[in-house]
């Protein structure tokens, strides 16, 4: 099983490789990837350095081209594919069908992974991408239960990659327009959810308020820990009852079901967080390396170590973690 770690910068990339990642994934410095944030991602020079570092350590590099090509500007997405090939990357992670089509026709040798943003959740959808673009691996959306993941793994010969840890997207990825409904910008169109430029913090008599494009997302009392106002994790009312109507601020953590993922033949576990610091990448990578190694050395003795959980909770949203949709009760 491959451990695939995020790298939003060259220091994070090196950290991931040094701490035991089998592969890292990166994005270019433009809106062709879904973490298009200021100060993040790789320009050509940094990318070349990063690719060299990965090669020197015999690891793999995946390039995420996971937004949807704008009409009239498709070239930017196609150029990203060209870059990926020039760089000698091991795989391109693509969501847009136009971009997949370009890559499959121009570079039949390039290994294509279907991005989670393409939202393939069933065998028929997987067949579509396999038949049309010879996709080699599918990254599964975080909407499937572990039972459904196993079922899918049994019914397809496609390599499957699942999200193992990180921010929890609770909607079928690539099919969520909540961010553009609030701000005009969505992951699909500009490569960011709840973009930072729309965020505003304000101390008021009722507490610290977080707003996204002026819409109140949450209000915190002095003893409450404030989190980034990702809009699906805000507090809203239904029939005057105030609660996290969609989801609490929490992170996905699948350490507890690692054996099940292994037994299901999952090819790769992916850590979310290209927007996070090298320190985050270091801690997460170490824990997951230890967990995978521990299982592989003695599957029957595998159990989640307390210190792993402590490390992961510390870097989690709201300091709490969940199995998310993998666990039916969450749904």
């Amino acid at each position, binding site marked *: 099983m491959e451990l695939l770690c995020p790298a939003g910068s060259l220091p994070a990339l090196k950290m991931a490789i040094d701490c035991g990642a089998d592969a890292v994934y990166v994005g270019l410095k433009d809106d062709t990837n879904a973490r298009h944030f200021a100060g993040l991602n790789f320009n050509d020079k940094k990318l070349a350095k990063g690719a060299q570092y990965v090669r020197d350590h015999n690891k793999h590099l995946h390039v995420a081209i996971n937004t*949807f090509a704008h009409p009239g500007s498709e070239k930017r997405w196609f150029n990203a594919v060209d870059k990926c090939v020039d760089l000698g990357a091991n795989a391109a992670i693509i969501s847009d*069908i136009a971009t997949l089509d370009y890559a499959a026709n121009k570079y039949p040798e390039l290994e294509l992974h279907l991005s989670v943003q393409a939202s393939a959740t069933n065998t028929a959808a997987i067949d*579509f991408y396999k038949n049309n673009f010879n996709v080699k691996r599918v990254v599964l959306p975080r909407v499937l239960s572990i039972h*459904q993941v196993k*079922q899918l793994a049994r019914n397809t010969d496609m390599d499957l990659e699942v999200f193992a840890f990180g921010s929890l997207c609770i*909607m079928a990825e690539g099919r969520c327009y909540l961010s553009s409904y609030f701000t005009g910008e969505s992951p699909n169109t500009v490569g960011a959810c709840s973009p930072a430029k729309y965020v505003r913090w304000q101390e008021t008599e009722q507490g610290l308020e977080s707003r996204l494009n002026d819409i109140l997302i949450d209000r915190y009392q002095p003893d409450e820990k404030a989190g980034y106002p990702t809009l699906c994790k805000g507090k809203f009312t239904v029939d005057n009852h105030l609660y996290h*109507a969609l989801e609490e601020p929490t992170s996905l953590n699948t350490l507890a079901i690692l054996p099940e993922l292994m037994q299901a033949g999952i090819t790769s576990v992916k850590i979310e967080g290209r927007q996070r610091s090298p320190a985050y990448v270091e801690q997460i990578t170490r824990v997951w390396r230890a967990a995978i190694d521990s299982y592989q050395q003695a599957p029957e003795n595998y159990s989640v170590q307390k210190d792993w959980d402590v490390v992961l909770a510390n870097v989690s949203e709201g300091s709490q973690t969940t199995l998310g949709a993998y666990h039916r009760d969450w749904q």
Partner: protein
Amino acid sequence: MKLSLGPLLYYWPKQTTEAFYQAAIKSDADVIYLGETVCSKRREFKARDWINLAKELNNQGKEIVLSSMALLEAPSEIKVLKQLCENGEFSVEANDLGAIQLLSERKVPFVCGPAINCYNAHVLKLFVNQGMQRWVMPVELSRDWLQSALDDAQKMGIRDQFEVEVFAHGHLPLAYSARCFTARSENKAKDDCELCCIKYPEGRTSHTQEGQQVFVLNGIQTQSGYCYNLLNDVESMHDLVNVIRVSPNSMESLAILSQFKQQILGAQQQFKLDDLQCNGYWHQIAGLSLQTSL
């Protein structure tokens, strides 16, 4: 320009649904979409019932299309999808790539529904080659975006091979989750939901702590809190749009169809939209915004 009645997104008792479509057959809709697109646990109308309803409504001057589910997770859901694809008579609205796969294998013409990520003319071309006859643009896209995509389609020589449909009225389907938010709002798990969404024929509204209506919760689907309304934008659709979609929420939707009909016929009436309505996406601004010339 034609008018369509989109698939019913909410869960209604069987009799209510039947009565609605009996009335719809006399409405101004040219196209009627039938089927469950949100949750496979909703079985007041099973796939067979939808197909039977389609047969019953057919030959009454309307084009009937069968709509399929947006989020397909279980083999049982693929089985139902196959049943729809093999109906032998009606075209199907695909709302997942899995549906396009099954439909193109069977050479059944299809409508590319709004839940499919089709953002540019390259994708349109590929879908046309697989049997797409109509494209319902993703709801987050604007008139400008549509124009660019269609200009490209023109250059590729495929513009006359498909129709364009725009979601023009109703609460916008914005997201799909594994989680059922209606069940959650009643403190129930999805597996024990007791199909409680049947109690909310227009979904459950959700507000900010300042009382702004931000979402409508409809099972696993999250909709826009405001009602999207492009009644004042019909003129800007000429030469771009072939079909205007009204998403049903009650019998009132049939009256909305008539209002659109008048606009298509050139009434150029300016409707006063209240603060629970929006049209932002069409104007390339935040979806919940309301651009008004009044």
